[in-house]
């Protein structure tokens, strides 16, 4: 289907199903139950999950496939966000032009940075991208304030020209971002016996864009171009001995992943028209690395899973405060309750980064293939023993390249 082989079609259909039914899947607990804490079926979070999914899928093309560890990809996300907000300020609140311009601007920007950074490989490349990203962050934060809004960030205002479309909505407010009149914030609520399912326009737009992005990345993985990128990862010298120049391919991969990041940035502002410099900080770049690694670098579905898990944990774990913990353990004797709360408390709430760091370290140490490899190992435990080594195809082959990057 769609030029994919059977295995990839199945994977793609699974992702489609996950995206379409996410409002149900992410809302397993009825409202009002204690476990409703873990529900993630609200629009903001669902949008975030798929947007970071796009970001990570794009990053995976560079890191997972080509093997270049960039520590500056948040810069492209930030540039895409700024471009998107500017389109909304100048042209129209329709999100389509904003998205297109975000992608183009981020693409051009990554072409520039990639052209310079890709002159070096390995750790030097990482440091160069890191330096560029920090430079962008500093500039956006200080000198470029007229363009970027500096510390406060770039927001819409009532004085924006907005050539096509209204400057002000009928009620005198700033108009909301929309897709040909369909507002991003509008959603349809479905109440079913205690459950409240929300179907949000913005989420489904993001979901659709992510499916397109994911499809493109699958095609790219399976294309001759994707093979070239793998060749760069496994052994660049050998590749150049065969008469191929790795630079243009690496640059193409860099620009493509930059465009994905720009798209993610554009979608972020399409959902919430606000762009700030902190989006470009290097720790934000680190976060997308974490997502890709956690899910499984070099695999198709890994980055989406990783992005989903991290965005979910960030939103859910960070809301667990001490009161919630005390409620959970209220049935226990008081000394035990307090001990448990004191043990768990540093890992949740504002301390969720600690959990993130620990999980990340454990993954890098024990499970370099990420969630995807973990899943395979578990299914290998329960599956037929003889099957193990003989059916290493497609996805499994990806994981093997991911676990031993060619150096």
């Amino acid at each position, binding site marked *: 289907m769609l030029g994919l082989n059977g295995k990839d079609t199945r994977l793609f259909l699974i992702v489609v199903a996950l995206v379409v039914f996410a409002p149900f899947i992410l809302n397993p607990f009825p409202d009002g139950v204690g476990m409703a804490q873990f529900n993630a079926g609200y629009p903001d979070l669902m949008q975030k999950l798929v947007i970071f999914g796009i970001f990570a899928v794009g990053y995976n093309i560079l890191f997972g496939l080509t*093997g270049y*560890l960039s520590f500056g990809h948040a810069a492209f996300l930030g540039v895409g966000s700024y471009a998107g907000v500017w389109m909304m300020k100048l042209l129209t609140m329709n999100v389509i032009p904003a998205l297109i311009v975000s992608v183009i601007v981020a693409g051009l920007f990554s072409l520039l940075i990639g052209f*310079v950074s890709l*002159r*070096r*490989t*390995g*750790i*030097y490349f*990482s*440091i*160069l991208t*890191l*330096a*560029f990203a*920090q*430079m962008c962050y*500093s*500039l956006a*934060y*200080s*000198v*470029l304030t007229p363009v970027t809004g500096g510390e406060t960030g770039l927001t819409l205002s009532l004085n924006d020209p907005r050539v096509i479309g209204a400057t002000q909505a009928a009620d005198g407010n700033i108009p909301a971002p929309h897709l040909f009149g369909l507002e991003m914030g509008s959603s349809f609520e479905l109440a079913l016996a205690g459950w409240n399912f929300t179907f949000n326009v913005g989420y489904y737009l993001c979901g659709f864009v992510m499916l397109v992005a994911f499809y493109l990345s699958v095609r790219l993985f399976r294309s001759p171009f994707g093979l070239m990128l793998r060749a760069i990862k496994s052994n660049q010298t050998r590749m150049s001995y065969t008469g191929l120049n790795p630079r243009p391919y690496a640059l193409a991969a860099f620009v493509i992943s930059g465009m994905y990041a720009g798209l993610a940035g554009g979608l972020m502002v399409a959902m919430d028209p606000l762009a700030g410099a902190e989006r470009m900080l*290097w*720790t934000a770049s*680190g976060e997308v*690395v*974490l997502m890709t*690694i956690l899910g499984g670098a070099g695999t198709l579905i890994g980055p989406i899973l990783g992005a989903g898990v991290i965005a979910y944990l960030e939103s859910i774990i960070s809301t667990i405060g*001490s009161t919630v913990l005390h409620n959970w353990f209220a049935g226990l004797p008081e000394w035990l309750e307090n001990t448990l709360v004191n043990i768990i*408390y*540093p890992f949740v709430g504002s*301390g969720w*980064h*600690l959990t*993130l*760091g*620990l999980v*990340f*370290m454990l993954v*890098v*140490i024990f499970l*370099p293939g990420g969630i995807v490899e973990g899943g395979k190992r578990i299914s290998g435990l329960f599956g037929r023993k003889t099957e193990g080594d003989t059916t290493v195809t497609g996805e499994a082959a990806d994981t093997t390249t991911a676990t031993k*990057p060619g*150096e």
Partner: protein
Amino acid sequence: MEAIILQVLNGLDKGSAYALIALGLTLIFGTLGVVNFAHGALFMMGAFVAVTVKRLLGTSYEVVDETRTDFLGNPMTIDTPYVVSWFGESVGNAMVDWAVPLSVLIAIPIMAVIGVAIERGLIKHFYKRPHADQILVTFGLAIVLQEIIKAFYGANPIPTPAPSAFTGSFDIGQLFGFDPFAIMYPYWRLVYFGFSAIIIAAVFAFLQFTTFGMVVRAGMADRETVGLLGIDIDRRFVIVFAIAAVVAGLAGVMYTPILSPNYHMGMDFLVLSFVVVVVGGMGSLGGAVLAGFLLGILQSFASMSAIIELVPGINQVIIYLVAVIVLLTRPRGLLGRKGVMED
């Protein structure tokens, strides 16, 4: 002339910090071949050793606002940083106010233990893994360490003043025959510079004049051959890592009066010190020190108002700009040898 000298002096303290962190990074990188993204965290932990010592001894003249309570006037609840709940908010008057210099003595064993623990517990397993994995796992470690510090000490910067004997400024200008008050320089910055100079000299002397140091230098030049000669690399790795950790930690301890320690100072300095290492040349100790001071001084020049007016924002990007130019024109850095890490 005064202005130039002043900027050079201003750059010295930052430059010393960069040089010390970069020295450790290069030492680890050159001998162990590990890219340690947790090195900034070690710097930060050194700073928090000083904070803890100050708290434990109560040895400071700093007066904490004793009226500080939450908005209802209640005592702090579970969100209070542990250190505050253990030792209380009040610091009070000092018996001795030499907490920061004293912490140096306490920080040496602590940082050495931390260094050994990190090397044995984690880095040891990563010598054979690709650089990307090393970066990633140490980056994770840096997050964990900084979050632990945040959980114990809170997110706010903790002012940790220098001994009162070193407050105030010193009129360097008069010493060299300039007008009085033309070049004033805070005492503690002088102390910091002198301290870093001693540490750097000590590290170089150690590498130059001891057998151990000779082996380490040989390892930096050619790791495989040293291993083939039957030298017990493992034990040396631990010691090298511990030394690097101690150097970073001491840089942090002494930096506390200049910058109030906060939990993300490690990350802030880490990026810059990586840039320093790269500019100096990976694996070159002299290059790290040279580039550290050079970039520190350049940064303070770029912060002059005349230059900012000329090129807006230059103070923010100067270091990265230099790094990019150096990397593109002279990939191995200022004093780097050819072929290091150019895979």
